[in-house]
């Protein structure tokens, strides 16, 4: 990563962790007074390196793991704040990063809620991964 790419990547996380949804090149550029085309180029490099994922044909962040840049069925909630995650692993990871709270997963018929408090996940539950680790980025959306 170039030094600028590092700054852009960190700013993406700052914005999303701070509660922003719909983080795109313009939002990133405006937040720091950067040139939008330079941010777009940086986003492309970061996506090519599988550091982030962009929505197709857009300069909008789709994934900055463990955060999702779009609404999903997985939501981490701490106090009055919430963040979307990409999957069950990531919703737990957001709490591992940010602190105790709830990991919520919504399905067509029901909702799963795990509470994380003092490093303990309750109730006990399982996470299933379909795609082997070496193939995570073959189709990161499917993963």
């Amino acid at each position, binding site marked *: 990563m170039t030094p600028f790419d590092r700054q852009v990547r960190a700013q993406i996380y700052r914005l999303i962790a701070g509660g922003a949804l719909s983080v795109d090149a313009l939002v990133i550029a405006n937040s720091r007074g950067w040139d939008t085309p330079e941010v777009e180029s940086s986003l492309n490099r970061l996506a090519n390196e599988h550091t982030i994922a962009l929505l197709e044909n857009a300069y909008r962040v789709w994934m900055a793991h463990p955060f999702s840049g779009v609404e999903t069925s997985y939501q981490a909630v701490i106090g009055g704040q919430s963040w979307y995650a990409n999957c069950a692993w990531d919703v737990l990871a957001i709490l*591992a990063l940010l602190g105790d709270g709830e990991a919520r997963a919504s399905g067509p018929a029901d909702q799963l809620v795990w509470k994380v408090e003092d490093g303990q996940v309750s109730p006990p539950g399982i996470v*299933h991964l379909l795609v*082997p680790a*070496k193939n995570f980025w073959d189709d990161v959306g499917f993963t």
Partner: protein
Amino acid sequence: MKRWLLQSGKDLGYVASAQTFFEMSKDWYAGRMDETWERPTLETAEAIFSKHGLTGDFWKLN
């Protein structure tokens, strides 16, 4: 879980406890939001998985 996967035609994949994934995430995502974050090497990544009992071909990166 196995019955659902077999009925749906999906591969078995890997199943572990939510607690395991939560604890592994602390190592996996450590420093992720920092400007200085570096992608771990394949060896480091596999060591993180292994530290939390995530072993076998499913977790191999090489």
